[in-house]
């Protein structure tokens, strides 16, 4: 069943928050890498270059510091390092989990490839995956840091399964490893974890497998830790209301891309975890105006009250030009603060939040 989001939400409210109402602003995670970082990633593989692994680590540290501060400058309540150290959402983790091997790139479409790993033996936990990354980011951030982790369903189904009788069994083993990682992150001070499961959108009939995996991930994690689930680009009516039974605090959705056609899905029954609403499109290069984003935020108020509404972009912003990603984030935060003030002033009818449009 759903966790207790009201038990952990207030810790993310900044001490100097200007409004009575608090809509938690956050991001999904990935952010465009500075061009020099891509060059650095290539340079370290060039045998003729003096640029070595420790230089690359320094470059990653610099980039993480830069993007964390960029998030803070945009005014976000919770920040991420933009996943500057990660190459791809499955590859990064498969590289760190015992039991995976890589055989080479496979086609996704056209000339776009992905280094799809194979699970060749039982998966096992070796070194921590994200604790160093979290500790570094928390050390340079003024605001609380959110940690996105690729979920076990996606880590299982976006790999070749050579070792397990069924991929479902692989997913449960991976979920136990994610649980171990989340425990270590919590020990290191993390209070906001987001499980990313894009693969669920393509096979919504597997929602029960994802539910069981989340049970394993959330087992023993105290309620002051906020656990979110991000699912993007799918037909949410096929996983709702089942997700109301998931042990999560927050459900993070991409809805701006579909112009909120799917919002009515969540009208009945009432959504139990907090709703993290996508209000800017991660795949259009035009920065939405503050006014447009404010209208998008009101869409969320149709299905949850302000104290259960979190605001984020639809998805990771890494495919956008960096100035566009920043523009969207900054306008998003401005819109959040303006909507909060309008709620405080009684200017938005919470029973009919789209009125006056």
């Amino acid at each position, binding site marked *: 069943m759903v966790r207790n989001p009201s038990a952990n939400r207030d810790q993310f409210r900044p001490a100097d928050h200007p409004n009575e109402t608090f809509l938690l602003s956050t991001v999904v995670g990935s952010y465009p890498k500075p061009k020099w970082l891509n060059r650095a990633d290539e340079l370290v593989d060039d045998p003729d270059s003096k640029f070595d692994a420790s230089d690359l680590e320094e470059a990653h540290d610099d980039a993480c510091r830069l993007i964390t501060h960029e998030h803070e400058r945009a005014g976000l309540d919770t920040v991420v390092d933009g996943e500057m150290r990660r190459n791809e959402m499955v590859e990064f983790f498969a590289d760190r989990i015992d039991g995976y091997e890589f055989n*080479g790139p496979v*086609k*996704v479409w*056209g*000339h776009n490839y992905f280094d799809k790993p194979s699970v060749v033996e039982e998966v096992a936990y070796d070194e921590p995956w994200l604790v160093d990354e979290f500790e570094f980011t928390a050390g340079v951030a003024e605001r609380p840091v959110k940690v996105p982790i690729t979920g076990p369903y996606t880590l299982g189904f976006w790999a070749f399964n050579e070792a397990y009788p069924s991929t479902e069994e692989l997913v449960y083993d991976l979920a136990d490893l994610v649980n171990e990682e989340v425990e270590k992150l919590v020990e290191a001070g993390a209070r906001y974890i987001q499980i990313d499961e894009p693969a669920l959108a*393509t096979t919504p009939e597997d929602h029960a497998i994802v539910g069981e995996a989340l049970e394993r991930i959330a087992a023993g994690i105290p309620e002051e830790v906020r656990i979110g689930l991000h699912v993007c680009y799918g037909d949410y009516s096929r996983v709702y209301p089942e997700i109301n039974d998931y042990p999560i605090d927050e459900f993070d959705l991409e809805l701006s891309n579909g112009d909120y056609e799917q919002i009515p899905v969540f009208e009945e029954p009432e959504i139990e975890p907090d709703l993290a609403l996508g209000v800017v499109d991660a795949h259009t290069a035009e920065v939405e105006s503050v006014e447009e984003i404010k209208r998008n935020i009101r869409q969320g108020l149709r299905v949850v009250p302000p104290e259960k509404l979190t605001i984020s972009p639809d998805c990771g912003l890494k495919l956008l030009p960096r100035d566009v990603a920043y523009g969207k984030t900054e306008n998003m935060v401005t819109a959040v603060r303006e909507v909060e003030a309008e709620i405080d002033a009684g200017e938005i009818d919470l029973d009919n939040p789209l009125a006056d449009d």
Partner: protein
Amino acid sequence: MTERVAATPGLYPLPDRAKETLSDLKGHQKGDLLGGDEGEAIVAEYDEVRAEYVDHQLDAGLDLISEGQGRWDDMIAHPLTVSDAVETGGIVRYYDNNNFYRDPRVVDDLAFSGDVADELEKATDLLADADGAADASLAATLPGPYSLAELATDEHYRDEAEFQAAVAEFLAGEVAAFPDHETLFLLEPSLVTTPPVEGAEERATDAIATVAAETDADVVVQTFYGALGEKLYAHLVDEAGADALGFDLVAGDRDDTVYNVQEFGATDSLSLGLVDGQNTLVEEPETVAERVEWFESQIPLEGFDRTYLTPNTELFYLPTNKYRAKLNALAAAAEVLD
């Protein structure tokens, strides 16, 4: 005595070097994909890829050699996406896979292109020049008309039956231009994933028969992603003009396929999808051979003209080292059975 033939319907992964070269030459975006009018450098690169594919298959010892279809950016939708009567639309999901292709929107009368025939001519030349190719002959591959129509969007004929017939006539015209080939694989996964509605089976089998009638070669109607429905299966055996129906024996519902064959009989030859085209785990030749014997033992018939040993799907899902290992496994399994 049944002749065992190790073969594949092609659609191989590009060699890793060519993945890079071609993405540099062509680009990563939708508009950069193949239109059938590629420039010299791209043609030259694909010529090299084709030669590599032929070598890989000869090295493995396959009985039939495929062109490999390295140019098919849009997988089996390729013959339409290079057609003049087609505008490519958005990127859409390719069956139930994490793969995508450009939606071919048919906006005009479909007319002959000769694109696939040109590829096969080049493969024929390679085979003629290759060492050790004396016993190997060519296997051609096309999408079946039912699947190709299902993968496309009709914005011209505006009638399902008419569109399917037009796609069949178009494919038949392409086949008529093919150089000599021993076998023609018609790939028909949509017969499994989105089968014709009740009463429309004959229209689908007629369309396949239209294409099959254009060649003297053995025609294999290869289905995959699971078992066929029984009624459709019976129609296919009787009406599709196929010398062999092909089945996915890797899929979990293979007992349904056995039931179909036991209940409704079979074509004179069979094509068995035995190695998993979507998993890097490489089957032992003995395991593959056992699967052939298992399947044949379930069947009350006295034997077939031919049993094709094939992968259950196309092979582009795999990294290149594993695709080659799968070719080797098929050829070695045919040896084991001999």
